[in-house]
Each structure stands twice: as C-alpha cells, then as structure tokens.
C-alpha cells in the first residue's frame, strides 16, 4: 500500500477501525468484558499523536465502543464516527469536521471489504491494513518536518473542542452569551520571531478560514515582521475548556493610500464558532482607522472550502463588487472605516507592539 502514496504527502489524520484493529476482538461479541486493546497499534497511535497527527475512530458499533476505546488507550480522539453507515461517508464527515483534505487521511481497517469500499469511494485516502499501520511510524508520510508545540497538543485540543461543542449544544443562549459563560479570552498582539514556525504552519494547514490560500514561508514572514509598511498580528485563544494557543494571524499592509489591505487572514478551524475571526476583523478595522485609512480591503480567493471566511467578512460588513471575481477566484472585499465599526467584545485584549 505504501507505493500508492505519493512521497512527501504528509498524513494529518489517522482514522482507525475498532473491531479486530485497535481492539484484539469484536466489541459487541464479547461476553462480559470488552476485548483488550492491541498494544502494538496503541503504541503507534500514541507515537503519531505525539507528532501532531490527529487520531479518529470510524466503527460499526454503538458510541459506547468509542468511549471504551478512549478509556483503554488513554487517547484523546479528535473525532469518532460510530454507526452502521458506510465507512467512506464516516471518513468524509471526519474530513469535513476536522478540515483535513482526503489526501492527508490514512484509514486503518482489518476488513478487506471496508478497505476496498473506502479506496473506491475516496481514492485519495491512504488505506492501510493493521500490519501496514504497525510500521507506519517509520514512513515519511507520517513524519512531519517540523512539530510545533501546538501540533504536539493537537489531539488533546480536539478533545477539548469536542467537550466545548457538547456544552454549546446544551447551552441554548446566544453565541456571545456562551463565549462569555465559558470564559473566552482572546489576545491580539504583534508576531514575534518565535511564532514563525506556527505562522508558517497555519498558512499551510488552514483552508476554511484562510483568505489567500497561499502558504507563506518563515523567511517571508520574518521579512514582513521587519517591514515598516506591514503589521503581522497574532491571535491567541483560550477558555475554561483549555488553551488553544496561537490560532490565527493577519498581515496588514498600510501604504498611505487611504486603503489598509489585509493581505492574509488565517485562522485554525479550532477557532470556528468562537468569535476569533470576528474579533480579528473588528481589531483590524480599528487599527486601520487609527492609522488614517478610510477603507479596509481584504483580497480573498473564493473557493468552495473557505465559505466560513466569506461569512466572517460579510458579518464584519465587507463586500466585493459583484462580478469582480478574477479568473483565479480572487475578489477584493472592502468596507468603509467611517462611522460605526464592528463590535469588539470585552474579552478581547490587545498587546501593544514592543
């Protein structure tokens, strides 16, 4: 199976089957105690999680099976799809939920029929037997070049996200009431040299909340941080469920023409629904207005994946000229900075530069 994967394509998420894969037996067929965990694969799972690769479950079992696997492996799964539907559909839902493209997903299942179905429906997914998976830790696809602190904690962060989503579903009030209730804290501040690996990583990994879709190298970022015409701002996010660290950034160019341009806006999908991009846009409006700009412009390459970015732009009052979309999908969204600016909630704090 290794030969099917193009060299260098880094896997970001491993979706595991449960029966006869992560467990040495079948969950529902065990009388009394459910079967024990497969120690070799559990070791691989923890090794890969430590490299920032997300771990998920897709199983024909009741949800209790996922809870059981969670407890016996001690792993914080980013997503769990338990049910009797197709595995390909389960993987597609996991991919959408975690914002991971199909070609960055590996699927491990002992059942040949399941593997064949997934390979046929989702040809980009790397399909593995448990025997393949046991050796996967040595393969280049499972060895990201740089493992940032955020990446190492990624599985845990997704676990926190799952618990937060459950609380939000049970809450019932408005989003802002919920954000306040759970102690949301956002810090916007100037990017520092130590942030470069994480900023580069965000430029590569974010899709739903990314305006340009273009990776930015650490070298380019370092130049922008040093440039007098540019501001690179980072956004850190935390609440009572956990600290997500550096989740987003903006690159703002002010060239004295009266238009301040956000050349890049990017935000981890972990921040979706938590007011982070809205806060960043509200802050950008204030910074640009204070510097004397009359307009904020956000060039955005419109794709079918970054609809959430367009929703945030629309909510912050930015509009593009209809019919102005270039051949490459790029449209420039703008708003006037005269009059009322978008609301900046009081849980957002701003660090001064230097």
């Amino acid at each position, binding site marked *: 199976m290794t030969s099917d994967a193009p060299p260098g394509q880094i896997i970001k998420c491993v979706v595991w089957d449960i029966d006869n894969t992560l467990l040495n037996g079948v969950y529902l067929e065990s009388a009394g105690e459910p079967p024990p965990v497969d120690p070799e694969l559990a070791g691989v799972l923890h090794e890969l999680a430590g490299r920032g690769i997300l771990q998920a479950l897709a199983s024909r079992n009741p949800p209790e099976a996922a809870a059981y696997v969670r407890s016996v492996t001690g792993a914080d799964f980013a997503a769990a799809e338990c049910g009797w539907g197709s595995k390909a559909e389960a993987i597609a839902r996991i991919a959408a939920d975690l914002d991971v493209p199909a070609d960055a997903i590996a699927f491990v299942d002992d059942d040949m029929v399941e593997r064949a179905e997934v390979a046929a429906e989702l040809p980009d997914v790397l399909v593995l037997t448990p025997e393949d998976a046991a050796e996967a830790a040595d393969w280049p696809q499972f060895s990201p070049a740089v493992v940032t602190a955020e990446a190492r904690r990624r599985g845990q962060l997704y676990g926190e996200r799952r618990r937060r989503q459950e609380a*939000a*579903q*049970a*809450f*019932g*009030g*408005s*989003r*802002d009431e919920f954000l306040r209730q759970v102690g949301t804290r956002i810090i916007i501040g100037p990017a520092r040299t130590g942030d470069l690996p994480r900023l580069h990583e965000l430029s590569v990994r974010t899709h*739903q*909340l990314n305006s340009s879709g273009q990776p930015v190298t650490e070298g380019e970022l370092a130049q922008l941080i040093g440039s007098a015409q540019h501001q690179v701002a980072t956004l850190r996010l935390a609440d009572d469920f956990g600290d997500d660290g550096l989740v987003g950034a903006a690159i703002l160019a002010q060239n004295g023409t009266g238009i301040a341009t956000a050349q890049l806006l990017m935000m981890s999908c972990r921040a*979706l*629904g938590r*007011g982070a*991009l*809205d806060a960043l846009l509200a802050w950008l409006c204030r910074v640009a207005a204070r510097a004397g700009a009359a307009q904020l412009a956000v060039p955005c390459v*419109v794709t*079918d994946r970054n*609809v*959430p*970015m*367009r*929703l*945030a732009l*629309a*909510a912050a009052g930015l*509009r*593009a000229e*209809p019919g102005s*979309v270039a051949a490459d999908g790029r*449209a420039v*969204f703008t708003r006037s900075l005269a009059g009322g600016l978008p609301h900046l909630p009081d849980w957002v704090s701003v660090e001064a530069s230097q």
Partner: protein
Amino acid sequence: MTGDQARGVEADLREVLAEVTGRPDLRGVPAETSLFGGGVGLDSLAGTLLLRQVQRRFGVDVAAEDLNLDSLESLSTLAAFIKERLSSDVR
C-alpha cells in the same frame, strides 16, 4: 410555486436555524430580523452549517451564487433567494 410552498421554505429555514445554532427560541424569530446582527448573531460556523442544510434540502448552493452572501441578511431574504432559484428551475 404555490403560496403553501413559499410559506414552507420560511418554516423550513426556521427549523434549520434553530438546529444549527442550538437555539430552539429562534423558531419564533421575525422574518426580517438581521441574521448577522445582534438578534441572531450568525457566525462562520452556524452560517456554514445553515448553507449546507439549505443545499441539502432545497438543492440551492447559496455560497456559489451569492458572492457577498447578502441573501443571509434575514430569513425573509434567504427564503426569497431560494424561492427564486426553485421557481426558475421549474421553468
């Protein structure tokens, strides 16, 4: 499209809105209330889920057809956008 179907779109949208925001009280939101503004506070996440449900239920891809997503101004504008697409499909 009959008047019943037209009313049906708005009723369906209320149901979807309550679902994607997790707020049953939004079933009773006036059709003219701003979705992005304080009344509903639709954000990127809930907005994406709403558009996904609209595509599933009505077969209308709002994101592909409305660059600025102005159709999300209110339930009434979104219902009008969907009804227009549905009736032009019939013709």
